[in-house]
């Protein structure tokens, strides 16, 4: 019998719709896989066996149908789920049971998607390795001694380890794309405003965006379509139809498409093996009929400092809501301490080192006397980066770069060097500052570990990512004789 955990989302949904297999059997196969390998991978913070099987039963009873009905999924623990714990990888929300569903959660349920549980992440999505989770790191299924990327390392690892064919991530500076790159999976940050942020625990509100994680480009497109679209409960949600991503993923043709390599996102700072796989993939795009040029985006060199001023500033404000009053932890309430003392003790006990670092950094950048030089200047640089994108898109349909400067590094290697960790987001941050969509897809191995290529498109042209990704993936699968993940070592069960 086929191993149900090896099927793509498309194959899974088709088998369920044809009644070749039940949604309950599919859910159970994945729950068994989680039970077998998640002790080693630690992709999940919470497995919702009961909820998953109940949803699968609804699909089997014909109560819900659609292109993803019955397909299992891992949901990043930053998206709230009614009745199911949501920790955001933090002690401060340990044990909290949300009283409502995020819009993403609602749409997944309505699409018949079976949510298996909540995936591990860097605390409040701040990190590039998932090592800043208060509940311990996730391990990369390609090499358990290495990081799975972050902040959405749990979602990427769950997909790479066949614990779920789909997962939801969120991407503020690369938290979907960098984990996808280092785990050999596909990850997409949609256009900002393309997927509702209602019920997404906020880190940096002007940058946060939820999106799909999958093993194929088409699976990602189906998930993108299921969660995307206008939501009146998010005032920054774009009131326009979801771009035709599924159709684009199926096209597998890039003839005449103008692809430009971003000069500032190659060369120095990128590992030679990553650069080689990237160059080969670009040459392949040319063979497939795309025209390839190089563009310069001079202000991208300042994307990293701009991001590390804007995101911590917004975080320092957003995280003020963790006040020991409305939800989560309360420490030091002895009847003598004042509210302010209890608040300060709770936040000191409940937040981890990286979160404290960013709150302090953001508070500094926003303080009077420094505001103009730091936060104000960063927002102006954001404008210049946006202008660089717009200028580049006058002569190119999409921009490409390596998705991550290196392959997965060993656990612990950068934990004591915040700046080295921040540099992991070198290539992914510009799209967040601009707001445009971007994808990472696997293009080969370096040192036996996956390398990702990033495609960036203009805002609300998300379909271009899928058009390029679908064509490149098909050509690479032909070359490799199957998906890259097929060459990953088997996890011991």
């Amino acid at each position, binding site marked *: 019998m086929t191993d149900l955990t090896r099927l793509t989302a498309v194959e899974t949904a088709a088998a369920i719709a044809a009644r070749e297999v039940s949604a309950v059997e599919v859910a159970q196969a994945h729950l068994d896989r989680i039970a077998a390998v998640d002790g080693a991978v630690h992709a999940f913070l919470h497995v919702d066996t009961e909820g998953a099987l109940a949803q699968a039963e609804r699909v089997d009873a014909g109560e819900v149908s659609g292109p993803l009905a019955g397909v299992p999924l891992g949901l990043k623990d930053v998206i709230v789920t009614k009745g199911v714990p949501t920790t955001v990888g933090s002690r401060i929300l340990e044990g909290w049971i949300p009283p409502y569903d995020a819009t993403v959660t609602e749409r997944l349920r309505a699409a018949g998607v079976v949510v298996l549980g909540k995936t591990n992440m860097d605390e409040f999505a701040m990190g590039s390795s998932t090592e800043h989770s208060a509940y311990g790191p996730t391990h990369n299924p390609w090499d358990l001694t290495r990081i799975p990327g972050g902040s959405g390392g749990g979602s990427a690892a769950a997909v790479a380890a066949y614990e779920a064919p789909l997962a939801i991530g969120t991407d503020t500076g690369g938290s979907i794309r960098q984990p996808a790159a280092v785990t050999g999976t596909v990850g997409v940050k949609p256009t900002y405003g393309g997927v509702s942020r209602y019920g997404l625990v906020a880190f940096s509100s002007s940058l946060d965006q939820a999106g799909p994680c999958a093993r194929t480009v088409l699976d990602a497109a189906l998930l993108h379509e299921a969660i995307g679209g206008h939501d009146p409960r998010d005032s920054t949600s774009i009131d326009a139809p979801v771009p035709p991503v599924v159709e684009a993923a199926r096209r597998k043709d890039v003839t005449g498409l103008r692809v430009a390599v971003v000069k500032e996102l190659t060369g120095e700072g990128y590992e030679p093996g990553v650069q080689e796989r990237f160059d080969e993939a670009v040459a392949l795009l040319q063979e497939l009929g795309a025209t390839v040029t190089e563009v310069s985006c001079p202000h991208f060199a300042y994307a990293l400092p701009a991001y590390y001023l804007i995101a911590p500033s917004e975080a320092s404000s957003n995280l003020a809501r963790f006040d020991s009053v409305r939800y989560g*932890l309360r420490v030091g309430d002895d009847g003598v*301490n*004042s509210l302010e003392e209890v608040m300060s003790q709770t936040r000191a006990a409940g937040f981890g080192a990286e979160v404290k670092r960013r709150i302090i950094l953001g508070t500094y950048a926003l303080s009077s006397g420094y505001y103009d030089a730091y936060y104000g200047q960063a*927002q102006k640089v954001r404008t210049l980066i946006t202008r660089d994108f717009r200028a580049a898109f006058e002569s190119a349909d999409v921009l490409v770069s390596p998705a991550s400067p290196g392959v997965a590094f060993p656990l612990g290697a950068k934990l004591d060097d915040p*700046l080295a960790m921040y540099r992991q987001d070198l290539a992914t941050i510009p799209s967040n500052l601009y707001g445009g969509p971007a994808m990472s897809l696997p293009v080969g191995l370096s040192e036996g570990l996956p390398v990702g290529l990033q495609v960036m498109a203009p805002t609300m042209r998300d379909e271009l990512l899928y058009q390029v990704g679908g064509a490149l993936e098909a050509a690479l699968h032909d070359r490799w004789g199957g998906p890259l993940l097929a060459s990953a070592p088997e996890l011991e069960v």
Partner: protein
Amino acid sequence: MPEITREEVAHLARLSRLALEDTELDGLAVQLDVILGAVAQISEVTDAADVPPTTHAVPVENVHRPDVVTPSLPREDVLAGAPAAEEGRFRVPRILDEDA
């Protein structure tokens, strides 16, 4: 660029309502100095002077909804997640000085 002192970090921690240990303050002073040194490169961007700031990636303005009352979450469901609740309300620690 800035040398950030331990006292400054302590001040920022107080503003942020973080009761940090002395060792945390020492560590943060060193780390913030390194991080701020790196992000200070942003001042090199001289062509930013007359550029308007971007606060949001996709400009949307004045999003309204009809002024109609819609149901809120049930009070007991919300209070169930609170660290302390009493008489249908959040219970907070002392907010006034004893002698106030």
